[in-house]
């Protein structure tokens, strides 16, 4: 900045005090309007991509916890029962959803259920697969968690914990590592992450308590 600039700046200050209030309001209003328009245009570009990605994540998770089924169908919880049919015009995301997987011969392999409950720090959201025939779990995947890095967040990827759910008999029971009796309902918990492990086990058991009867009813109707 040259000395001249500074002087003109200084001289301009008293004049600036007389800026009418209307101009101040107009400046901010116009700026706000422009900012809003800009954000809306970016939003319209980004929103489909964000939704697409979320759907993709959910699809991958369903496939994973059902053990790579050939295909799956979405069931909706409407009026206390499961149904694959949605009234015309209804938004599919308004209802609780359960997914039923089928193998290549078209035989059902199990159901994928969502569940969420508070963990150690924030809500843990997970999806798990349940085989209603053998009453065994097929797999579990944590979708969202903010558990402590290095301890609680091992519920996401610690293979000896996550792998322990496949084949466990419902309702499951958490046991300390290496202290189980080998019973089918036992799942090894993570040392140092007892609360997070218990939360995961709790979510699965509670969801099965709530939705288990609905699943049984649906299967009974299907056979008929």
């Amino acid at each position, binding site marked *: *900045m040259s000395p001249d600039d500074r002087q003109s700046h200084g001289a301009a200050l008293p004049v600036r005090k007389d800026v009418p209030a209307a101009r101040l309001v107009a*400046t*901010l209003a116009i700026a706000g309007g422009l*900012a809003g328009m800009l*954000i809306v245009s*970016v939003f319209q570009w980004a929103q489909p991509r*964000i939704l697409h990605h979320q759907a993709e*994540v959910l699809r991958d998770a369903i496939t994973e916890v059902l053990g790579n089924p050939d295909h799956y169908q979405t069931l909706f919880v409407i009026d206390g029962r499961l149904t694959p049919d949605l009234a015309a015009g209804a938004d599919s995301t308004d209802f609780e959803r359960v997914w039923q997987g089928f193998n290549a011969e078209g035989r059902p392999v199990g159901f994928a259920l969502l569940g969420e409950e508070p963990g150690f720090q924030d809500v843990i959201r997970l999806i798990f697969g349940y085989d209603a025939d053998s009453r065994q779990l097929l797999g579990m995947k944590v979708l969202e968690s*903010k558990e402590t890095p290095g301890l609680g967040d091992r519920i996401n990827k610690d293979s000896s914990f996550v792998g322990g759910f496949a084949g466990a008999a419902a309702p499951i029971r958490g046991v300390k590592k290496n202290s189980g009796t080998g019973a089918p309902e036992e799942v090894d918990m993570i040392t140092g992450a007892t609360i997070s492990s218990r939360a995961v086990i709790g979510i699965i058991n509670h969801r099965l308590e709530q939705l288990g009867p609905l699943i049984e009813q649906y299967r009974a109707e299907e056979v008929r």
Partner: protein
Amino acid sequence: MKATTPVQDLTRGVWRENPVLVQLLGLCPTLAVTNTVANSIAMGLATFFVLVGSSFLVSSLKKLIPNEVRISAFILIIATFVTIVDMLLQAIVPDIHKALGAFIALIVVNCIILGRQEAFASRRPVGRAVLDAVGTGAGFMVTLLMMGAFRELLGNGSLLGVRVMPVAFEPWVIMILPPGGFFTLGFILLGFGWWKSREEEKPKLRRWPHGVVSSNKADEVAA
């Protein structure tokens, strides 16, 4: 304010007036999201983009913005850029967006950005404002990277998710937890202060700006 050259505007923020290490600004993201190198890079890039974009706009519009509402106008401009970055990250790299969480939105109140608008961009030509923003943004990124590399290396035994420490190395989990952020920042500030005090003790001759011939060289030329 001293007159500065464009090169000085660009390089000043990177090291000598580093926003974090010297001005101790923007400590919240510095401590919170530097637990891995990937998070550090994403946070650094997001802040860089917002800073450069805001400095450019504020400097271009400085004649139109009345003095009385300048801070509101700056915040409006910054918030617009942050919202755009937030949505872009969510659309393009959702995993990183998930890891950074609320800290993307909090770039709005990062005082490095508002500080550069008020102290520099709002009273300088557009070119200089952008140079200054690039330098300051780079300085912020350099600091985040140092923090992220140190914490991920010790706390997880890896860099950018690739394990580099020997198998026998037991990760210091505390380094990726919040206390690790404070430890790391403390050590980096200590090192930086030590380097700076040594720099100041050096003989004046060696600190002369480029283009000035030192007395020794002058002697040589004379000979």
